[in-house]
């Protein structure tokens, strides 16, 4: 296998370099610059080695490269494991292998690594565009593999490309069949992707600026598809809960109670059935929404849902504060089913002491706010009345909604309520909860997303990062937890029409991303284009990501009564066999390979069998004609006919024709038929 004088064919090398560059390109945007530089250097080096200008790396340099590369990756990431460091290592190895590759085996390993690098790209991005691009790279890698196996004389890369495209074309139908029919099984062992990547999204703490920063991002947070029978909630009801913040330290809101601990959560069948008691009443406008949420990775376990939400998707649990939680961080696009019922009274029977206490926590700050709270409470007749007085206070004083609030310090709530009066949803929610707790009403901040854009093409909602929002839940006697959104009392547009309308005057909507198509929602065709593109992406995600064991079963149960492993195996094998048969027919269609025996030989054998009955057999090495002549001598009554046949045999033999209907052959046939033996 190791030919000593083997040189990678020129053609193969050209494609290998092209494939290497193509496969690395998506990683270059993600990896540190020095990795990219090393990769480019390796490519140039290989080219120069091939052209005979430079030498390939000798042993010490190779060792230096390998250890140096490993050390550099470790220094950069602090680890050698995990997708980031792992892919950096893989890519460096790929490049180093390329420069030192001399034997066919080396080149083959580079090709194999090329396929691997392509596959690894899908860890980080699974969009349509990337998939199309990587399909192209796959063509190049396959062309490189083909080039390695072509003869050295081949110097036409175009032909190599054409053949590799053809081979891939042969393989695609089989791939699709496999994709649909290969039984989907769950993870064989559980793995966690690294969580050190910075992802846009909600964080566990909210200080004044966080959500304002988030609102500058036009990234998609999640999509919601409502079931056919379910209606879409109006904009003012679209409060997607994700987090509950109940602890204030005078500066920022954080999660005081940790209700996400495994044993606290109501997983689907671990017996934490405490969720049933806090629910009560058959709510008057009992409306139920059934939908599926398809979320982008957040590296956090929090899921989104309208209150009050339950999910039957595997691995999803419900917490004591009525949120949904996944049993591991969402590291890849994730899809789950939710059914939300609006109108239940939550915790109507009263709060447990620990929960009550936690929702009254306040630091010893902001005396002016406390005074205001006492004053308003004294004037109001009931708790509910107090809440409305506070809301009216926000509405009537000259508060304004802005993405560019001034910086606060010291007694921040006091400063906000009495001096700046300019703020964002988290300012209002924070101040509101402070005012509630100051008079002994349990209250908490809920962070999540509010609103969403309906895509008319697919009838689903698009929720972006700039829809991030914070609002308040207050616990009132008899009514349980009630949602209030103080921002809506300051800027009703924010809730009814979204952030863009609320920021119309200020012009600060997505001001940091001038190229985002979302900025141009005024233009009908850009919006149309954007929504169509999203619909395409959405379909792609549904097919590629949503096709799991369950979807497979659903698809097949439409066609077959019983779907089990046996059916899958039978289907799989028979379809693949049919495809291979079709493919072999296609490959051999214009060749005369169908092993049809020579028509002349067939006639001769037949004659031999007839003569054998007369006791005549061809001798070893006897030519057909001479055998027939010998037969003529020993069968005098057929001598003339046999002589003629012998002549005809010679005629056919020396003017051969593969055509069954050749006139000379036909004449021989007739003569043989007339022969009376």
């Amino acid at each position, binding site marked *: 296998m190791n030919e000593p004088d083997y040189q990678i064919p020129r053609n193969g090398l050209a494609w290998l370099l092209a494939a290497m560059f193509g496969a690395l390109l998506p990683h270059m945007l993600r990896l540190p610059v020095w990795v990219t530089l090393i990769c480019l250097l390796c490519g140039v080096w290989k080219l120069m080695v091939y052209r005979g200008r430079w030498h390939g790396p000798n042993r010490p340099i190779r060792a230096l490269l390998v250890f140096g590369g490993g050390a550099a990756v470790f220094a950069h990431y602090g680890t050698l494991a995990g997708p980031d460091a792992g892919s950096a290592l893989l890519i460096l190895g790929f490049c180093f292998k390329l420069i030192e590759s001399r034997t066919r085996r080396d080149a083959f390993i580079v090709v194999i690594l090329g*396929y691997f690098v392509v596959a690894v790209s899908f860890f980080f991005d699974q969009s349509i565009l990337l998939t199309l691009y990587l399909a192209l790279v796959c063509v190049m890698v396959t062309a490189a593999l083909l080039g390695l196996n072509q*003869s050295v004389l081949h110097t036409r890369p175009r032909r190599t490309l054409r053949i590799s495209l053809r081979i891939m074309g042969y393989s695609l139908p089989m791939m699709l069949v496999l994709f649909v029919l290969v039984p989907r099984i769950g*993870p064989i062992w559980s793995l966690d992707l690294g969580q050190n990547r910075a992802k846009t999204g909600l964080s566990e703490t909210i200080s004044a600026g966080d959500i304002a920063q988030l609102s500058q991002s036009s990234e998609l947070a999640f999509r919601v598809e409502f079931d056919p029978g379910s209606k879409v909630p109006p904009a003012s009801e679209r409060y997607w809960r994700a987090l509950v913040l109940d602890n204030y330290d005078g500066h920022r809101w954080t999660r005081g109670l940790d209700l996400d601990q495994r044993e606290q959560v109501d997983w689907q069948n671990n017996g934490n059935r405490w969720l049933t008691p806090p629910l009560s009443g058959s709510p008057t406008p009992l409306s139920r929404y059934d939908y599926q949420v398809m979320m982008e990775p957040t590296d956090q376990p929090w899921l989104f849902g309208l209150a009050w939400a339950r999910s039957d998707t595997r691995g999803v649990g419900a917490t004591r504060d009525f949120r949904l939680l996944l049993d591991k961080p969402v590291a890849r696009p994730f899809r789950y089913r939710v059914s939300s019922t609006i109108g239940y009274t939550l915790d109507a029977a009263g709060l447990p002491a620990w929960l009550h206490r936690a929702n009254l926590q306040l630091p010893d700050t902001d005396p002016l706010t406390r005074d205001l709270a006492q004053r308003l409470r004294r004037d109001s007749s009931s708790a509910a009345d107090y809440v409305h007085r506070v809301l009216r206070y926000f509405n009537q004083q000259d508060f304004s909604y802005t993405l560019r609030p001034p910086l606060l310090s010291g007694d921040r709530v006091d400063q906000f309520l009495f001096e700046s009066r300019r703020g964002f949803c988290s300012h209002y929610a924070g101040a509101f909860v402070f005012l509630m707790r100051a008079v002994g009403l349990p209250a908490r901040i809920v962070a999540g997303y509010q609103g969403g854009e309906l895509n008319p093409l697919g009838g689903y909602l698009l929720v972006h990062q700039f829809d991030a929002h914070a609002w308040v839940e207050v616990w009132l006697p008899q009514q349980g937890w009630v949602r209030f959104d103080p921002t809506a009392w300051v800027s009703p547009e924010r809730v009814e029409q979204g952030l863009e309308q609320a920021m119309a005057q200020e012009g600060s909507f997505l001001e940091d991303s001038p190229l985002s198509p979302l900025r141009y929602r005024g233009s009908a065709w850009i919006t149309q284009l954007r929504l169509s593109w999203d619909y395409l992406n959405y379909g792609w995600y549904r097919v590629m990501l949503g096709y799991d064991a369950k979807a497979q079963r659903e698809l097949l149960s439409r066609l077959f009564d019983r779907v089990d492993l046996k059916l899958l195996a039978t289907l799989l094998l028979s379809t693949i066999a049919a495809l291979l048969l079709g493919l072999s027919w296609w490959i051999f269609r214009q060749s005369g390979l169908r092993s049809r025996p020579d028509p002349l030989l067939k006639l001769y054998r037949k004659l031999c069998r007839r003569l054998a009955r007369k006791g005549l057999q061809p001798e070893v090495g006897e030519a057909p004609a001479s055998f027939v002549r010998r037969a003529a001598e020993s069968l005098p009554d057929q001598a003339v006919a046999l002589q003629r046949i012998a002549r005809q045999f010679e005629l056919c033999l020396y003017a051969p024709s593969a055509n069954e209907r050749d006139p000379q052959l036909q004449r021989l046939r007739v003569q043989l038929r007339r022969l009376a033996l």
Partner: protein
Amino acid sequence: MPAGFSPLAGLRRRWRHWSDAWLRKRLPRTRATTLNQRRIFILPTLHGLYFLVMTLALFIGGINYGNGLILLVALFLVSLFMSSILLTYANLAGLRLSRGSNQPGFVGQQVAFGLLLESEREHESIAIGAPGVAGVKLDLIEQRRQQQPLLLDAKQRGRLQLPRLKIESRYPLGLLRAWSWLELDSRALVYPKPIAEPYPQRLESGSGRGQRLSHEGSDDFDGLRPYQGGDNPRQIAWKNYARDGRLHSKRFAGYQQQARWLEWEAYSGMGVEARLSRLCHWVIQYHQQGLRFGLRLPGAEVAPGQGDLHLQRCLSLLALYGLSPEPATALAEDSVADLSAVAAEGRG
């Protein structure tokens, strides 16, 4: 290394013996064959196994991370492997192999066996080799019909049978290896190795111009005769043709030389091969000097003559001296006995 008993070597020998017998039975010696499913064997290469291992790794990765696209890449590679089975097979299938013209050679030189390849489809990167044959790699792309010389070292005088050829291809992706064995009924003559040694004077008969005997010489112009098919074009009298439009050949007179005889007895006291080698040398020498000579061996002789055909006749006689006459067709059964006979005689 002392030649001790090694069970492994024994096993290997037995395996080779058994597989040889099996192959002979399955693929008998033939003059021409078309490679088809009966003749083509196919198995994954080591590279193919690596490829499958990588594919399995990607598959497990795709499942474990629940990543549909990585799964898709793995399934694509599986499909690539499967269609590669068909394509590797197709690269050999339909290839028609037959014997072409062989070039004889002397012992110690190389004999060229002609192998004729034809097909209706494209075939690429086909390796042909056999023990003792320098391997070749060829493409049938633009030319669908090609004669490929196979060089084989000539070690023994006599008829040299082309060894069993292995026709192999890993095209297109190198993941699988398809191969076929071909026992082609193709033989080439191997002449004795010429060894220069003075011819004993006592047997050398006279030289110089003999009497003019023949009209078929090339020495002196002797008149014209009407052109006949097969005449040397150089001897056509073009001037006459220009004059009267009819083709004539010039006739030359040759001087019949006194024929010399190369005698077996000239090197009495030497072994068979030694005598043949020396006679071979003189056959070539006389031919190059354009002399008329005859060759006399015990029980066989070539009458005095001249020219290429005569040379070949003499060399063939030397090559086949003492060997059994060439068997006719139907070689499948007797081929081995035949070959061993050739070998035994040659060694003697």
